[in-house]
């Protein structure tokens, strides 16, 4: 009984953490984009720097009318945002926040994350198809093609890390990095592939083709409003956060402290590294134009996958030589 309570508590902590961070990320995205674009961003709600803007927005969206357009497939339309939230939450089960601070230290952690990532597609399907809108249909097809293509390099990029660590468990991978060095040093190619494929996986510019507001208006969530839309939005930022946490864990040593700076708690290090990736993703988003769907495919099949395979081969050779 206590175990069950403990799991529920853990789940609640993780849930709160993600929701708060997703809201923080929304605020951060607006600020970062504003600073890059010579603007100030939100300033009014909450001083300084309009920190409460996301809270106000979420509250506003909560109280908005729940609009379900008349010709939609109601079941799918309602299910879409809920399914969207699921993978964003489930990923966090295996990500270690600190040495003994992980919800479930699965020994197949990396594989689990890859599997969860593939569920995300279902939410875009249900939402995009259920909306009964031509734009969202195109968007759903686009994201299907995109996720097929980017799942492969993403998993291939992870294989290098797994080969070095000799384990699929994220905790083991961090421990292995603690003994040697951060894997970004051993796996620069793998990291590059992971970064590009990861950004494509969470649908951010320059790969936000399924959303593409200048072409598809808003893609699969064009018919959504109010709370449902907010769930899609929070899920998007939850995914970004999860990806960043994963990158920090796999390539930057997770919660381990660099340069012997042990007095800062591991949890803080983990967050710092995660947010470093968040910033990079935002910086990229507000710099580049969007690529086209066929170019996106080209990038995956003609560049990322060969490079990822090369990385695996190099890693294999390296392991054979040095061990």
């Amino acid at each position, binding site marked *: 009984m206590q175990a069950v309570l403990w799991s529920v508590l853990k789940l609640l902590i993780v849930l709160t953490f993600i929701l708060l961070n997703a809201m923080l990320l929304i605020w951060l995205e607006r600020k*970062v984009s*504003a*600073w*890059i*674009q*010579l*603007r*100030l961003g939100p*300033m009014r709600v909450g001083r300084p720097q309009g920190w409460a803007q996301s809270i106000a927005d979420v509250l506003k969206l909560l109280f908005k009318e729940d609009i379900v357009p008349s010709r939609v497939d109601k079941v799918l339309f309602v299910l879409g945002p809920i399914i969207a939230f699921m993978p964003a939450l489930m990923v966090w089960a295996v990500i270690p926040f600190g040495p003994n601070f992980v919800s479930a230290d699965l020994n197949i952690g990396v594989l689990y994350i890859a599997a969860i990532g593939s569920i995300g597609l279902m939410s875009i399907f249900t939402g995009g198809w259920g909306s009964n809108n031509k734009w969202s249909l195109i968007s759903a097809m686009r994201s299907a093609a995109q996720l097929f293509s980017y799942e492969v390099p993403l998993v291939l990029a992870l294989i290098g890390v797994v080969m070095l660590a000799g384990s699929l468990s994220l905790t083991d991978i961090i421990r292995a990095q603690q003994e040697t060095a951060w894997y970004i040093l051993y796996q620069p190619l793998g990291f590059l592939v992971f970064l590009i494929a990861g950004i494509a996986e969470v649908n951010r510019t320059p790969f936000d083709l399924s959303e593409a507001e200048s072409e598809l208006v808003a893609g699969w969530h064009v018919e959504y409003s109010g709370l449902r839309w907010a769930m899609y939005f929070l899920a998007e930022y939850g995914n970004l956060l999860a990806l960043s946490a994963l990158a920090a864990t796999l390539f930057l040593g997770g919660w381990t402290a660099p340069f012997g700076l042990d007095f800062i708690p591991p949890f803080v290090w983990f967050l710092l590294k995660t947010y470093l990736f968040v910033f990079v993703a935002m*910086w*990229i988003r*507000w*710099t*580049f134009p969007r690529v086209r769907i066929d170019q996106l495919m080209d990038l995956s099949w003609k*560049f990322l996958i060969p490079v990822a395979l090369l990385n695996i081969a190099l890693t294999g050779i390296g392991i054979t030589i040095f061990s």
Partner: protein
Amino acid sequence: MSYVRNVANVVATLLVGLRVTLREWFSRSITLQYPEQRWELPRGYRGHPVLLSDEEGKTKCTACGLCVRACPTDVITVKGAKGEDGKRVATEWVLDMSRCIQCNLCVEACKFDALAMSDRYELACYRREDLLYDMDTLLELGRGDGVAAITVGDKL
């Protein structure tokens, strides 16, 4: 080989782009926080026409109707009567701001220096009737700052 060179070129241009945004990231923002901070308007900014008054505070308008004829959108209504000194004086001068396109043609048409452009720009109001500015309002606004009458051939 050309594949590698192509990739290198792509990466190079992308890095150049990232450098631009990084530099601007740390440059000063140019946003004006509007209600608190305000734009400094140049002399001759065309807000909307107002009436100028003479030393005694009375209107210079003689209700000659030149402005009415010059106005492309027919927003000016003028009525005049003989004043105490026998000269014609405007008794009613109404501006319909809901249709005014702020083109300055009425100011240019006026031969009695009775009209000028105010630099007011916050013209929103809740009721349509409030957009009808009568003579007293326009005279009062004409006494404020930022009023200028610029006509054809003027130097600024």
